[in-house]
């Protein structure tokens, strides 16, 4: 603990939308330490999706620097970024984003296929990962045979299987009812206790409060401890 795993400095990203320039990220700086559980909260259109794309190495900033695990992301080409996503980042999406034609186990194995792990080891690690989320007995099920909560657990197992530096969760409970949401959040807290660095992106304050640290984003500007966003919420 203590070493920064993510260092973002003065990151800028603008989009042109119908002739108007939108500052999706406006001079954003952020430092995340190893083992942190950070929530990024913001309403829709605040730039949090853009930030998550940046954090997840799916997109590149116009300006500013991004160091992930000591590596300068800016210098990397598309293939190297794919490798970073494969090995350093575990994505957890709102809609789970499982491949519907693959079984739970095969979905979890997928990142390992792209990192070239042999079939035998892949199976072992995927089963191990499914066990961590409590779904070892559902390994052969297709996503359509699983409940929403179970599908999200499979997705979490998939994110975990490559032993990434960070887990990046984008509204992980957005498509779940409150009971399963709680369970998923508890699972994430457990994973954090085990030492995983987790970044949770949400618009829901109640969910954000589960995290140990919270930053808010609005109009592309980032503020520590919720800042204006919390005050705004308090007023309403």
């Amino acid at each position: 603990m203590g070493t920064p795993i993510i260092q973002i400095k003065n990151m800028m990203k603008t989009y042109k939308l119908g002739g108007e320039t939108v500052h999706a990220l406006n001079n954003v700086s952020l430092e995340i330490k190893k083992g942190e559980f950070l929530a990024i909260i913001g309403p829709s259109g605040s730039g949090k999706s853009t930030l998550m794309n940046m954090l997840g190495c799916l997109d590149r900033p116009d300006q500013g620097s991004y160091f992930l695990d000591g590596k300068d992301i800016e210098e990397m080409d598309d293939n190297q970024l794919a490798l970073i996503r494969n090995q350093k980042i575990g994505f957890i999406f709102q809609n789970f984003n499982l491949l519907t034609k693959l079984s739970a186990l095969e979905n979890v194995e997928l990142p390992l296929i792209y990192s070239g792990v042999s079939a035998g080891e892949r199976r072992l690690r995927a089963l191990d990962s499914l066990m961590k989320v409590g779904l070892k007995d559902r390994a052969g099920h297709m996503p359509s045979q699983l409940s929403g909560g179970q599908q999200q657990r499979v997705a979490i197992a998939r994110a975990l299987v490559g032993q990434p530096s960070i887990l990046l969760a984008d509204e992980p409970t957005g498509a779940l009812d409150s009971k399963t949401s709680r369970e998923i959040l508890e699972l994430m807290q457990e994973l954090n206790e085990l030492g995983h660095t987790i970044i949770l992106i949400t618009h829901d304050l109640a969910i954000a409060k589960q995290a140990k640290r919270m930053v808010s984003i609005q109009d592309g500007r980032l503020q520590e401890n919720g800042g204006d966003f919390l005050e705004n919420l308090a007023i309403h």
Partner: protein
Amino acid sequence: MISLRILQSIKMALKSVKSNKLRSILTMLGIIIGVASVIVLVSIAQGSTKNVTSRINQLGTNLLTVNTYSTNLELTEDKISELGDLNGVKAISPVVSGRVTAKKDRTTSQVSLTGTNAAYSDVRDAKVKQGRFITDLDVEYRQKVVVLGSETTSTLFGASNPVGEHIQLDGVSYKVVGVLASKGSSMGQGGDNTIIVPLSTGERLVGSTTISTVYLKGKSEDQMDFVMNEVKMKMASLYPGKSDDYGVTNQQDVMDTMSSVSETMTLMLGGIASISLLVGGIGIMNIMLVSVSERTKEIGIRKAIGAKRRDILLQFLIEAVVLSALGGIIGILSGLGLGELVSTLTSMSISFSTSVILYSFLFSLVVGVVFGVFPANKASKLNPIQALRYQ
């Protein structure tokens, strides 16, 4: 590691082919039809080539034919025997030919008549099935004996044994001494509907002593060019200045002409069938493009969890190739089946060659690669953010 990924991609591709059975089969149909038609058409063409060459071969590749084209030039017996004395010539057989009416009891039939000598059996490879062939004595004594072709035998005698029986040729009675084995006919030569008589008898029957054709048999097949030259030179010295009135042909020449004709035919048929393979490839490209846009989300997910451009490219390319290869295999099987069916139903002879099967399969693979590259490239270039957002 690369081969591991390719194996994995092939597994994934097979899975995706299986999960879309109807679509996959319809996609492969173009390739199936293309490969099958290449195999069937080329096999038919090659079968008929083989048929023709084997018939010509049956006549003997060491056979030379001297034909006269005009009455200016008379092939007389002494000159013919001079040809027979040539070094490379093993046997010689002069022929008079015509048509006669053969009659047995109530049955009459128009048949071609060949008057020749005893060597004919050897020179033309005319094997006797029953009885004996014409002998030199028959020629010398102008015996009224005949050897029947197999078809003539069945016309006149049905299934009964004709040897020792008598038939009438143009009203005169002849004794049947032998029956020829069936040879099959090709290009108007040979044929089973024939009657062979001694040369001297034949001259009288036809009413002409003009020998229009002389067959020569060379001593060995590899020396035929030499023998041909020998014969040509001899003919030139026997009939100076009349080279336009006769011709010397080699069985090999006839065969070369035939095979060049059938090669062209094979190429043309194969070419036409290949066009349908190409059309099949366009079908594959079409479906792969649909598949790419249907699976945009999948591509996004795969890219997010670490698939490189190359991985996506390979996945879709392999899928296209798996489709075309499966189509190729099914096409080969149905082509072979169809060919068998055609050959049993139509008595057309069919000759399958492994090289054609191999080439058409390889071609279908190439079609898969060529028409798979574009959709696969499109898939690999998708932006992961947009692909993930795609519903």
